[in-house]
């Protein structure tokens, strides 16, 4: 019995020295969900001619001609701000969100390496009404065990 106890205590102590698995929750993907303005309980599918993101150095199209209830937009890994532009099908004007954030580096462990976390997310400028944007999470995070869209923490809801 005493050997079982010693084995258990030994295992417990060794466990404290173990680095564990590299489960990385860092991502640069911003998660936006679209909701009905008249009924917040309901998601709404919106058709876009394009969803674009750009910064000082880059300008890229995340997706074009898409009908969706939620989408991911990558934030610029080399800048502290990203402009997201989305043009709804049938709308004469574009909507935009100029976002600022802090890129915070964390060394997870000697074996896992260093990763950039996007924190302190703020809307610097937008043409949307302030009641149209609901903030859920100011940190970009993902569940490392899944690649599904639901694995990314919801950052904003936009009400149409």
């Amino acid at each position, binding site marked *: 019995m005493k050997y079982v106890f010693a084995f258990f205590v030994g295992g417990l*102590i060794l466990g*404290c*020295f173990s680095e564990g698995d590299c489960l990385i929750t*860092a*991502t*640069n*993907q911003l998660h936006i969900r679209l909701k009905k303005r008249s009924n917040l309980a309901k998601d709404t599918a919106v058709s876009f001619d394009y969803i674009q*993101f750009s910064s000082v150095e*880059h300008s*890229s199209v995340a997706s074009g001609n898409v009908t969706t209830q939620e989408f991911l937009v*990558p934030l*610029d*890994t*080399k800048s502290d701000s990203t402009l997201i532009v989305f043009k709804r099908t049938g709308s004469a004007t574009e909507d935009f969100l100029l976002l600022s954030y*802090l*890129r*915070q*580096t*964390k*060394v*997870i*462990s*000697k*074996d*896992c*390496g*260093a*990763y*950039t976390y996007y924190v*302190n997310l703020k809307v610097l400028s937008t043409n949307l009404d302030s009641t149209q944007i609901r903030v859920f999470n100011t940190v970009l995070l993902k569940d490392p065990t899944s690649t599904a869209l639901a694995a990314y923490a919801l950052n904003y809801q936009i009400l149409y």
Partner: protein
Amino acid sequence: MLLLTYQAGWAQEPSQKKATQEKTAPQKTPKPKKDFSPTGIRIGTDLIDLGKTFGGKTFQGWEVNGDVDFANYYLAADIGSWAKDLQVPNGQYTNGGNYFRVGADVNILGKDPDKNMLFFGFRYGRSMFHESLHYTDTTNSKFFGIADRRVSNSSVSGGWAEVTTGLRVKIWKGLWMGYTARLKFAPGTKGNSPSLSPYDMPGYGPVNSKPWWGFNYQVFWRFNWKKDKPLPAKK
């Protein structure tokens, strides 16, 4: 008359009892008072730190430990320095800084004639350090390419607490050897740049590991300034 006789008898009873007790109870010797005045100072160093410094390329450091006795209580203090140069899978991390710890130990072998110690104690530690990281950020390189990032903290300070246990054994004259095991907890840092979360705090270790363990294998020299009182002989 009868009443007087009774009163006299009643008055004598307790003194008679006392006399009987004195005859039967063993005579108690007064406990010798503990002498709390310190008898010497023990100064030592950590051999593991020295071994890692001379035997490897990723760590450079030293630690000096000292304690002063107050009967079976000890006031303990450590100062040290460490610098690490670590290869991480996607970059290089370096740090360096100084630290100190202060605390107290209690020797549970209080009656050992050589003052050998099996002790338990606590420490409070403070650290002042700098760190820098050069790494490749591969997050979503599809749109933005691979980002090469350099981040640093030029002056960070931090603190933590420890519970300790260990042994100190007299080897020869003033030469002592022993070890200290440390359970470190409640690390906190301030003064870092928002772009780099502190990783390795000298004296503590990885800041995001709570609790963390430490182990020192130490050699000491004890400088006595007063002879310890001999223990009372056992009857």
